């Protein structure tokens, strides 16, 4: 079975690189984007199975990315997990209302991130730690 493809949209190159390494080590293919505009463009180009999306980014931010994805039927079905350094229930609520499958606050525990990804992709759990939830802050 081919590896699932995950698009990482984050303007912090170090965060991007860290997630990339972790996902590749767990048999996921990855593609990367560093702002809202290229996030949508990369989603259109690579048609990933899942998107990890930051909120605070140049060229519109994560909420704009979710809005744009919804307008394109082939991309509207791709599940989005928001991984943000922003605090507050307000952002969590808005992200979930905007269609995100989960809201994870940075710094995210690797096991929890992988568990939520697997849960969202409908894959069997393989982690030491169980996924705590799929509809809220982890």
């Amino acid at each position: 079975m081919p590896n699932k493809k995950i698009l990482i949209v984050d303007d912090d190159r170090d965060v991007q690189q860290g997630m990339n390494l972790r996902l590749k080590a767990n048999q996921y293919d990855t593609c990367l984007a560093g702002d809202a505009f290229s996030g949508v463009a990369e989603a259109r180009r690579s048609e990933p199975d899942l998107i990890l999306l930051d909120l605070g980014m140049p060229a519109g931010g994560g909420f704009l990315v979710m809005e744009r994805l919804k307008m394109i039927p082939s991309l509207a079905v791709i599940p989005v997990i928001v991984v943000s350094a922003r605090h507050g229930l307000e952002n969590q609520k808005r992200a979930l209302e905007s269609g995100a499958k989960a809201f994870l606050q940075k710094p995210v525990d690797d096991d929890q991130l992988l568990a939520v990804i697997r849960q969202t992709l409908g894959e069997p759990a393989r982690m030491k730690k169980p996924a705590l939830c799929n509809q809220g802050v982890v």
Partner: protein
Amino acid sequence: MTKPTQRIADLPAYLSHELRNALACIHQFGNILVDGLAGKLTGEQREYVSIILENASTIRSVLDTALDGAAPAASKIRTKI
């Protein structure tokens, strides 16, 4: 709202974003080292990286506590002004 007051009100969001991103990197790369994704570590090296990770977790707890308290306070400033 005056500029200094606006700055105070925005401080928790600013701190949260900047510090959490930096902490995310420390956690990610620390765990990458501990898990051997960048090569095998000696016992001593593992111990040192674990100390870094433990302290990063402590900072995270402090941040969670401080910012959870600071956000409502900042919104009160907004409401008052």
